[in-house]
């Protein structure tokens, strides 16, 4: 038995993997060779030292954590195949993973991607979770974009309606202006278009009454003239409001475009659209107020 074979035999004996015959052979070698005995004693010291290395103890709560989280997996595993096809296994996996994040094991330190291992190729939950998150982000972004587009579209429709309402506020003013009697319609002592019943039912109009009527008519003519001027101003303001609404519509259109490009910006644009809607509403309110005057 050469030195290499003797050393290997020492290892096998110390590993408790030698046969009874091999042990006896080693005993004979060690008894005959003090140097071999010294080597064997040194090797045994190494084995004893390895045995004495303190064990690494797991943190408390590991068993409880496993038992708490294995329920989730079991729930997923207990579902039928049909359920698995349409189920939320990735969400369940995500939940388990998130739970790990709060565990004492600091699971969050583990990279989310999985380089394929020799056995569990492509089966790591975090790998699925990563893909799931990115898909979800896309879906959420698309949802925000659609919501922003809906808000913008509804605002545009609302803007045009507001524009009509702006015109509508002019209509009563125009109707009122169309019925205005002109200065030539006013005749002293005669009937006025504003009091036709009196003119036709009073067979004896007094001169004083005629004079009063002439004064009233003159006042009315003045008021009508003022109203006409105000209506003209209102028309101008409404025209301005319509222009502002048009600008707002243009801004909203721009916002809608930006919303399509970027889901994150869409939310801001929606906010701007909302502001614009508020301005339009204010404008409409002003228009209404002007009409009221």
């Amino acid at each position: 038995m050469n030195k290499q074979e003797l050393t290997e035999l020492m290892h096998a004996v110390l590993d408790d993997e030698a046969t009874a015959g091999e042990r006896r052979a080693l005993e004979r070698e060690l008894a005959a060779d003090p140097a071999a005995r010294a080597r064997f004693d040194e090797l045994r010291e190494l084995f004893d030292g390895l045995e004495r290395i303190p064990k690494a103890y797991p943190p408390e709560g590991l068993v409880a954590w496993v038992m708490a989280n294995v329920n989730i997996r079991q729930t997923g595993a207990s579902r039928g195949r049909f359920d698995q096809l349409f189920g939320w296994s990735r969400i369940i996996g995500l939940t388990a993973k998130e739970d790990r994040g709060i565990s004492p094991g600091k699971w969050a330190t583990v990279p989310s991607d999985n380089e394929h291992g020799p056995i569990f190729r492509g089966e790591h939950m975090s790998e699925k979770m990563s893909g799931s998150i990115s898909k979800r982000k896309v879906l959420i972004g698309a949802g925000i974009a659609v919501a922003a587009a809906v808000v913008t579209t509804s605002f545009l429709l609302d803007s045009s309606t507001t524009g009509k309402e702006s015109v509508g506020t002019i209509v009563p003013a125009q109707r009122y202006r169309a019925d205005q009697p002109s200065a030539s319609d006013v005749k002293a002592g005669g009937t006025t278009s504003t009091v036709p019943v009196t003119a036709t039912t009073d067979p004896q109009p007094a001169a004083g009454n005629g004079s009063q009527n002439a004064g009233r008519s003159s006042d009315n003519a003045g008021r009508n003239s003022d109203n006409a001027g105000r209506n003209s101003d209102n028309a101008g303001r409404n025209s301005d409001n319509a222009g502002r609404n048009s600008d707002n519509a243009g801004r909203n259109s721009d916002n809608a475009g930006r919303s399509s490009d970027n889901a994150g910006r869409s939310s801001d644009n929606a906010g701007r659209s909302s502001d614009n809607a508020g301005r339009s509403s204010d404008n409409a309110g002003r228009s209404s107020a002007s009409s009221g005057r």
Partner: protein
Amino acid sequence: MSQPFRPPRVIVDEDTDVALVERFRNGDREAFSELVIKYHRPIYNAAFWILRRVEDANDVTQDVFLRVAERLDEYDSQYKFFSWIYRIAVNEALNLLRRNGREEELDDEVDVPDSELANPERKVSNAELSKRINDAMMRLSVNDRMVLTLRHFSECSYQEIGQILDLDEKTVKSRLFEARQRLREMLNDFDPTKS
């Protein structure tokens, strides 16, 4: 030669393991709890000596048992349960090492149980020797650490190590021999009396 050979290894009651596995397959959570309680320490310990970081060892141990619960239907009872679970643990640990891309800084945070150092006279020498072996182990390659861990800390036989690492017994024996040779060389390098 008062005690030339190793003490008998810890006996793993494989029949109990198989019974627990069967109970868990039938929906008995308590059976799985017993398996976790029984194996979480050795699995954690093996993971720690492969990964050398307590956080990673904890992560791997957690993941091992979740995988065991998921894949228990794949367990072939002709193999020992602990060999199967160790194999999962080793692969999980190696996967984590690959993901990290490199071996991280050494982690010396080993929770030394009091019972290991109960004898005051042996406390200093044992602690010193343990530290030297610990330091040397930490500097071995992952392959050396794996076989030494399975053999000395998990007390696996050559056959069991072969099943866990998918190696034949002869290769296991050879790897163990070489790993110990390298460990001895490192210990000699670290030995303050020889420097």
